[in-house]
Every structure is written in structure tokens, then in C-alpha cells.
């Protein structure tokens, strides 16, 4: 409860800071926030877009949060995301099974590859004492360039583009993808305005996968002896070691699960939204945003779900002030940075909360 309050205060302060920045730049802040609010929730297709946007953020946030609970800082979510996306794009392109086999198979391989990729950082920490923050930063760039290399590979590269071939339709997890543009679909949707708008964006099964993942992580962390040990390692490495817990194994396992979750984000993104992978000049930021999500959600699975949705909404609606007010949408990055900054200095806000508490009790 106190953590929730703390996060909420940081978020509110971040939003206020954003308003201040806009104000200082001569942009009407209230109007901007109004546009963002309407741009987020006034139409069904906006909400659909936010859900689509949130899906990978919830998953990468979950990934970072999970590693956090074992005392590891998974900055490598970005690279694990890329590996998941690349794997999904690749096998989604070369396999030709029916969807019932194709989808689980491609998802499974993607999760496996990315979990090995994440696990590598855990293993190097456990075995060689290489700090995971450093190794995952390196692994992020390795993943990026490796993905770029693969995209340009003969047979996978789509000629005259900067992207790979599209995945087979049987790999897609987008809802009603063909039907909504078919005659029957158009006909049906013309009578159902709300759903028609809602399904215009590539709404896909990713959000359900993300929700399942949230539950999965919550159960592991709170209900199982495996999660108990992971948390013991995260809270006190030495005590866990003395209690006979195989700390090295736990670190690797934790990073594998974290990697798998980030990979799932990448895979669902490819299979539900982008349908291919492109040459990247720089990181897209899904993993880094995942760190924000995890921090805002105070490293808990449900927190990550809420924070992921919040960040998704913020990022989606932030674009709208650009066209409406010519206000740079980067104000969103600034807000996120400010929120994380405030979260980094809990002392300040804890004091505030405690003072409020005292006032409350006096009454």
C-alpha cells in the first residue's frame, strides 16, 4: 500500500514536471494534457492502440521486475526483446504449419532463445562474477547488430527494403486479421460501430499472453518454493548461500525467466503487430521502458501490469500533442525520466508520506 502510494506520488510529480516543461516552452500544458486524455480514451480504436502498445511494455516490465526480485538488474531486456522478435520473425517465416502448431511452436522457440540469451548474463554473473548491468548492456548491442545481420541475410531479407520477409499468415496472432477486410467482415462491422473501431488496429492475442504471464510470475513469486528461494537470493545472497540454496543456479534461472518474458514481448510484437523485423539504427526502447514499468510498478507483477498500461497510454497519447499543438512528443520521455528519477529518491517522498500520515493521525 505504501509502495503504491509512493509510486503514485512519483507518477503525479512526473506529470507535473512534464506540465512545467511544457509551460516553460510556451505550450499550454492543461490543453496538452486534455488532448492526451482524449487521445487516449475517447475512442475505441484509441483504447485498442493503447492495449497493443502496452502489451510489450507489460512483458518487459515483468521481465525486469522478476530479475529485480532475485537481486539482478536486467538492463538486458532490450536485447532479449530483439532476440525474441528476431526468432519469431525468422521461424514464423520459414515454418509452414497450421496455426495451431505454428503459433505455439514459434512462440516457444522465441521464448527459449531469448531465455538462453538472458540466462547467459545470469550465468556469467554466477560463474565469473561479471556484473549483469555491464554484460547485459553489451548483450543488448550484440543482439541489435546480430539482428541487423540476420535481417540482411539472403533468403530472409526482403529485397529492396530495410526489413526481413513477413511471417507466414499462420504465425499471426492478430485477431480477425483477414476477416475484418473481407466482404463479410466489412458488412458485419458496418452494423457494429464500436467493435469496428476497436478492431481497426491490429488487436492481437498478445495482451492475453501478457496477462497470463503476469499471473504466472505472481504465482511463482508468492506461492512456490522456487520463488521463495529466488527472493531469498535477492534479499540476501549470503544468507541464501548459507541456507544451502544454490545461488548460482538461481541467478541463472532467474535471468532465464526474465529473458523469456522479454523475448515473449518481442515475439508477440512481431506476431501480432509488426509481422517482420527491420534494420535498427538504435534501440527501440521496449526494454528500457520495461525498466521504467518495473520501477513504477514497484517490481511487483500486478504493479507491472498497471504501470505497463499507464506507460502505453502515455506513449500513445503523447504522439497526439505533436500534431495538435506542435508540442514535441519527447515530453513523454522527459516525464518518464522524471518519474524514474523521483522513484530513485524514495527518501524524499517517504518523508512527505510520513508527514501526511502524522497529520492524519493528529486529526
Amino acid at each position, binding site marked *: 500500500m505504501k509502495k503504491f502510494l509512493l509510486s503514485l506520488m512519483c507518477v503525479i510529480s512526473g506529470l507535473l514536471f512534464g506540465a512545467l*516543461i511544457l509551460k516553460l*516552452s510556451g505550450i499550454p500544458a492543461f490543453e496538452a494534457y486534455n488532448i492526451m486524455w482524449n487521445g487516449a480514451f475517447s475512442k475505441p480504436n484509441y483504447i485498442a492502440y493503447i492495449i497493443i502498445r502496452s502489451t510489450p511494455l507489460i512483458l518487459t516490465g515483468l521481465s525486469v521486475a522478476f530479475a529485480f526480485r532475485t537481486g539482478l*538488474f536486467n*538492463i538486458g531486456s532490450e536485447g532479449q526483446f530483439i532476440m525474441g522478435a528476431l526468432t519469431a520473425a525468422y521461424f514464423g517465416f520459414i515454418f509452414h504449419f497450421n496455426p495451431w502448431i505454428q503459433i505455439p511452436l514459434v512462440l516457444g522457440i522465441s521464448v527459449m532463445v531469448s531465455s538462453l540469451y538472458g540466462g547467459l548474463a545470469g550465468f*556469467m554473473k554466477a560463474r*565469473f*562474477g*561479471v556484473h549483469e*548491468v*555491464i*554484460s547485459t*548492456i*553489451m*548483450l543488448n*548491442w*550484440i543482439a541489435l*547488430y*546480430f539482428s*541487423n*545481420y540476420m535481417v*540482411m541475410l539472403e533468403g530472409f531479407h526482403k529485397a529492396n527494403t530495410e526489413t526481413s520477409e513477413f511471417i507466414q499468415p499462420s504465425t499471426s496472432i492478430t485477431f480477425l486479421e483477414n476477416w475484418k477486410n473481407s466482404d463479410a467482415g466489412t458488412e458485419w462491422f458496418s452494423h457494429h460501430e464500436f467493435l469496428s473501431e476497436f478492431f481497426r488496429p491490429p488487436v492481437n492475442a498478445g495482451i492475453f499472453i501478457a496477462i497470463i504471464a503476469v499471473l504466472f510470475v505472481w504465482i511463482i513469486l508468492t506461492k512456490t518454493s522456487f520463488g521463495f528461494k529466488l527472493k531469498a537470493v535477492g534479499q540476501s545472497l549470503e544468507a541464501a548461500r548459507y541456507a544451502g540454496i544454490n545461488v548460482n543456479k538461481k541467478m541463472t534461472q532467474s535471468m532465464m525467466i526474465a529473458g523469456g518474458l522479454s523475448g515473449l514481448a518481442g515475439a508477440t510484437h512481431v506476431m501480432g503487430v509488426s509481422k517482420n523485423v527491420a534494420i535498427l*539504427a*538504435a*534501440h527501440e526502447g521496449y526494454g*528500457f521502458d520495461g*525498466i*521504467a514499468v518495473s*520501477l513504477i510498478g514497484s517490481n511487483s507483477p500486478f504493479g507491472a501490469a498497471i504501470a505497463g498500461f499507464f506507460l502505453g497510454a502515455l506513449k500513445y497519447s503523447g504522439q497526439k500533442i*505533436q500534431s495538435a499543438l*506542435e508540442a*514535441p512528443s*519527447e*515530453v*513523454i*520521455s*522527459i516525464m*518518464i*525520466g*522524471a518519474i*524514474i*528519477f523521483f*522513484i*530513485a*529518491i524514495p*527518501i*524524499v517522498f517517504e518523508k512527505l508520506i510520513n508527514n501526511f500520515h502524522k497529520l492524519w493521525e493528529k486529526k
Partner: protein
Amino acid sequence: MKDLIFLFSTTLMYSTPLIFTALGGVLSEKTGIINIGLEGMMTMGAFIASLAALKSGNPWIGLIAGGIGGLTLAILHALASIKYKANQVVSGMAINFLGSGIAIFMCRLFFEGTSMTPPLELDKKIPAFFGQYATVYLAFFLTALVWFVLTKTVLGLRMVSAGEHPKSTDAAGLNVSIYRSIGVLASGFLAGLGGASLSIAIVSNFRPTLISGQGFIAIAALIFGKWRPVQTALACLFFGLSQALVIFLGGRENIQISSQLLSILPYVLTIIVLVGFMGKTTAPSALGE
């Protein structure tokens, strides 16, 4: 021979931003403060330098302004990690979001909604001497200066002791926060110079992908260099060389090495070296506390 000279000068050129930034990282981490926000500070420095150089027409003003741009963010980092005992990695991540956010935000405000600054005219860039930008020489001079400060001076002794054993430093009647702040602020200024050396020397404008990870490579370099200024500069030269090789080999028809795979090289090597260190930590003892 011509190839070698090309390779050599390209290496020097590409190492420069890394050297500035990594030296900054050394100064911060030597005092015990992890600075993972170098990337954001570089971005900020790159933009502010470009802006100042365009507006003033003087690249030197641009360079200094770039340093100040990085310094501004470093103030935040110092405040969080020294005064408010923040988790330094988290604060650094916040700085990265803020750095790129503020830089591009301001860019759009100043330059009609575009995320790139207009190019500097050639004669408004940092001048070159003997085929190298002045910033290259400055980077080497600063390497020597940082080495001198850390190993020979009173200030250096105190900064290092703040990073090794802050309690002792405190018990010696010194104010640890002051020496840590000096380290962090210097790191921001140097990272800002690093960004500037990209936007107003190597290329002639700022754009969102300009820094793309160099701040993180600088961190790798300082670990590579075991937190020592001279070794760190050498590590930067090594990373610069691998960047130069990408360009050098990329421009040839007869050599079939993917530039993408070649780009991976420095990162893979860093990991290999880190694994090779095995147990031998040379990091300041109180880093991150």
C-alpha cells in the same frame, strides 16, 4: 601505407568522444558513484553544443556549452545519488531518459519541429590541425590531466579515498559528499564534451541517433581500463579502432565481412575480457554505496 594512415586517423577521430566520456566515467566512479547516465549526458552535450555553435558561430563556445549541458544533468545525478542516497543505477537510467528527451524536445522547439539540427558550416566546426580535430588533442591532454589529478594531487587522493572507503574519508574530517560531487559533476562536463566532439567536430549536426550507445561503450572502456585514466583511454582507442575497421572494411568490395558482424566485435571482446578478469575486481571498493 595510405590505408594505414586512414585507419589510424579514423581511429583517433572515433575514439575522441569515447575518451572524453570514459574519463568522465573514471572520475565519477573513482569517487564511488556509478554513472550509467553517461549516454544521456553525452546526448545533452551533443545537442547543446550544436545549438550554441549555431547561434554563436563559435565552435569553442559550442564545446564549452556542450560540457555545461552534460554538467546540468550531472547535477541531478549528484543530488540523487549523493544527497538522497538513490540507487545510482536507477538514477542513471532516469538521466538517460531525461537526456535524450530534453535534447530532442529542445531541438524540436528551436528548429521548427525537426529532431535534427541544421548542419554547421565547415568553418564553424571545431578546427583541425595536422588532419585531426582539435578535440582529439584535447582528449589526450585531458587523459594526462585526469591521470595527474588522480595520482599526484591532494584533490585526487581525497576523491579516490571517498570512493574506496568513505567512512575513513569522513573520519579524516573530510566531506565525502563534496569530493563525490566533484567527480560526478566532472563526469557530466566531460561526457558533455564527448557529445560535443561528435556533433560539432566529427559530424556537423545533432540527430537523435548520433550517440546511440557510445555512452555505454565508454562505461565498457573504463572497466576495460580498470578505472585507470591512461588504460581507459587506450581501451577507447581500441573501441575506436574497431569502429574505424567497420568503415575501412565496409568500403571495400573484395573483403566480405559483414559490417554488422564487425560492429559486434567490441562488445563481444568486452564480455570475453570481463569473463577473463574472473574474481580480480579493481573497481573502487565503495562503488555504488
